[in-house]
């Protein structure tokens, strides 16, 4: 019984470790300066990196602003949505 439980936990951990991407989508409302500010605030990016990502959102329609473990990605998406940025979560790659 104990061995079975251990095996199940290992599988779950492997699945959760797959990288996930946090994606911000363009919209006609959010100001460019605000998007830059929020990316700096939530991810701790410097202004230059945040501005590059913001311009990708603006010009390409969306940008992958962070990739990593699922739990953290969910937290970031929640934070970005709380700041009213259109944000989704997708498997990386």
């Amino acid at each position: 019984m104990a061995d079975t439980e251990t095996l199940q936990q290992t599988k779950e951990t492997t699945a959760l470790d797959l990288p996930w991407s946090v994606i911000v989508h363009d919209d006609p409302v959010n100001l460019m300066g605000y998007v830059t500010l929020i990316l700096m605030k939530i991810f701790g990016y410097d202004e230059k990196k945040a501005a590059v990502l913001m311009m990708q959102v603006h010009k390409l329609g969306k940008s992958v602003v962070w990739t990593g473990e699922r739990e953290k990605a969910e937290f970031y998406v929640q934070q970005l949505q709380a700041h009213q940025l259109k944000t989704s979560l997708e498997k990386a790659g």
Partner: protein
Amino acid sequence: MPTLEGGLRIDAEDASDWELLRSVVGDAIHPKIDLASRLGGLISEEAGAEDWQEFVVPDLRESFNDELNQVGAAIEAAAYHAKGDAGALWITPDDVFQWYSSLNQARLALEDHFHFGPSDNISPDSLSPHKRAAFFRSKFYCAIQSLLLEYVMVRP
């Protein structure tokens, strides 16, 4: 107008200005679908849409409503103090995110309802009176947001 304390002061000249400020809250309340649900709708099934709707969307909704309620109360308190006539409304640095959020909620709801698109491409004369009024309110909210960004949120 920027204040020495790092905030912003909005001067209302008469009752119509207070009505315009009150419209922030009214415009933010979308008649069909709320902002939290719209944001939650961006999460795919693969990413856990069901759990997101159950656990995250209600928190977002509560947070957005709280912000709107606080801004609405601040407007009513300032209007009451001014007896509905000329008076001032202060936005302090501590309140700035709830103000920005409320103005954003209003603009997002107006955009969702009227589909203005990028404002550069819009000729207000071509809009119906109802839509034109909404467009100018959205521009007014955007102007306040720009001032908040420049003078309150991004400070050296």
